């Protein structure tokens, strides 16, 4: 008990010494800084803008990246995509979907089948033909659970019958402005090399912001496509959507383990879209670098402003040195100014950055009606940016502080 009391008294003693030591230096630093409001505002603004640039960059470029990931997940691949290593999946799609949907963190799964086709439509007596259109076969009932592709249908509705077709907006445009209710012909070469032609009714036009949906494809019922391809019971891929996307690798391993005798290939979104995403990732890294260079520019601004502050306070520094302040006292005073600038700048900059991020998130920000950014607040990044700029402000104040300590009192006091 007595040891605790002694330790407590020692703590109080050293705390008091520390407060005494810091108090007047901090107070002086504050007064000197706050009485030069222009300089203070300039320095704070430099830090704020540095942080804001990072936040804006992050919101736009990371938001764009995440939006692409989101759309690729929602429209095309899911969080996990299962294919056959060599050919089509010949196992029953229902059994695979059921296997996935028994797992608690799987939201839904759906089969997909891909092919290409020639398509023609007669409009106002004129035949318009498009070749090599990507065709996606979907299971209408399952697809609307595992994918949000159906939400991109801006006119009409998603595939619901064997003879209904949804045209991507680009395809519809190329077909002379195909509309809901038009009928058209689709020609597919089946597995035996025979042309298979079917007539379809356009039930919807799909148009996704950013074009990651089926804007350049046509969507039909999966069983129809199977018929046309002569691949009854075959599936191109199983698209699996998870409640918790972070478990995609776990699910992949679980699946491959469960079906180790089959030649399945299971890939997470990052693996499927690796090529698409890799370039973007390095672009983001580069943009972030530019952001951090921006922050470095802020640091140079702080150096300049603090040098001005030191120059403006030369006489006072001389007086303080004359009445007994040591070089380290002067150093501490100007370092405190750096800390104050850094703290205020980091706070204001972070608040402004968060404000912008929240605004972008709430308004589902997009540019020129492109895909809405997928904005998330990553607190680790927010804290990292704030701490980096705070640290940079202190580092930036080192040189001016050092210069202040080098002033000789007798010469400094002569400064008018």
């Amino acid at each position, binding site marked *: 008990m007595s040891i605790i009391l002694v330790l407590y008294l020692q703590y109080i003693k050293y705390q008091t*010494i520390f407060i*005494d*030591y810091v*108090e*007047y230096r901090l*107070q*002086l630093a504050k*007064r*000197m800084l706050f*009485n030069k409001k222009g300089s203070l505002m300039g320095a704070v603004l430099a830090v704020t803008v540095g942080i804001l640039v990072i936040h804006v960059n992050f919101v736009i470029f990371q938001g764009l990246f995440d939006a692409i990931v989101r759309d690729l997940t929602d429209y095309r691949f899911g969080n996990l995509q299962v294919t056959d290593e060599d050919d089509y999946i010949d196992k029953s799609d229902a059994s695979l979907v059921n296997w996935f949907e028994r797992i608690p963190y799987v939201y839904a799964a759906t089969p997909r089948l891909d092919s290409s086709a020639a398509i023609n439509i007669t409009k106002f007596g004129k035949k318009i033909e498009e070749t090599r259109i990507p065709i996606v076969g979907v299971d209408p009932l399952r697809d609307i659970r595992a994918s949000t592709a159906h939400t991109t249908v801006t006119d009409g509705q998603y595939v619901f019958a064997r003879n209904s077709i949804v045209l991507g907006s680009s395809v519809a445009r190329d077909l002379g402005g195909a509309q809901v209710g038009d009928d058209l012909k689709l020609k597919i070469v089946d597995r035996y090399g025979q042309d298979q032609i079917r007539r379809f009714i356009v039930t919807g036009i799909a148009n996704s912001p950013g074009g990651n949906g089926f804007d350049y494809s046509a969507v039909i019922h999966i069983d129809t496509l199977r018929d046309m391809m002569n691949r009854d019971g075959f599936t191109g891929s199983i698209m699996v959507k998870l409640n918790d996307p972070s478990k995609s690798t776990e699910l992949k391993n679980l699946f491959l383990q469960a079906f180790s005798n089959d030649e399945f290939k299971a890939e997470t979104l990052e693996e499927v879209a690796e090529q698409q995403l890799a370039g973007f990732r390095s672009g983001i890294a580069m943009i972030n670098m530019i952001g951090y260079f921006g922050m470095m520019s802020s640091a140079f601004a702080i150096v300049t402003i603090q040098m001005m502050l030191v120059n403006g306070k030369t*006489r*006072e520094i*001389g*007086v*303080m*040195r*004359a*009445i*007994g*302040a*040591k*070089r*380290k*006292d002067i150093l501490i005073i100007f370092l405190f100014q750096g800390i104050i600038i850094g703290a205020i700048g980091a706070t204001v900059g972070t608040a402004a950055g968060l404000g912008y991020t929240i605004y972008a998130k709430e308004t589902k920000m997009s540019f020129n009606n492109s895909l809405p950014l997928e904005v998330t607040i990553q607190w680790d990044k927010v804290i990292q940016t704030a701490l980096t700029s705070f640290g940079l402000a202190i580092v930036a104040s080192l040189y001016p502080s050092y210069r202040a300590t080098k002033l000789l*009192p*007798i010469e400094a*006091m002569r400064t008018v």
Partner: protein
Amino acid sequence: MYNLNKYYGKGDTEVHALRDISITVNKGEFLLIVGSSGSGKSTLLNMIGLLDKPSSGKILIDGIETTKLNDSKISSFRNKKLGFIFQFSNLLPDLTVLENVMLPRQILGTNDSAKQDAIELLKLVGLEDQLQKRANKISGGQAQRVAIARGLVNHPTIVLADEPTGNLDSISAQNIVQLMKLMCKKLGQTFIVVTHDRHQFGDVDRVITIKDGRSFEGEESQRLEITA
């Protein structure tokens, strides 16, 4: 101080500012250093105040040879043993009157009675009603009073005043002179005051004249009379 010499410049431009100056200052003494402009009196005061280093010679204060101290110890020494009153008061404009007076004590690191002592001193110099005023909001005479209080707050061995009345009107100057003399008498404080205006100070304990870098005991007029 013994055989104090100070040279500025080198070669053809060398100036011998102080020449073999040896002065002993007694405790509680009000010493006036007089001389014309450029005679070297301020240079001498800067040496005593450890704001400048002599080219040769020794300065002993309280038995400590100050010329051998390093920068950090010089700062501590200035803080503890010396009080400064400058011509332009040199208060910190960002601080209040009270904070300016407390500053040397805060630098010393003994905050306990800093405020109380500063208030007492400001009462002595008649500025108890100006405590919270910013230093740049008071008159020149008041600022010089604050500077006197600041110079005394750490109970220094010597208070050094460089032309303390040089920037004041005659009435304020007289008040400051009287105040310094009062402090010298009341607190037993040693004062070394540099001035070019001898008459403003009236009777003082001792006068030293600096002429062309040399020191003479007494005033030049007396010396001329003796010489004649």
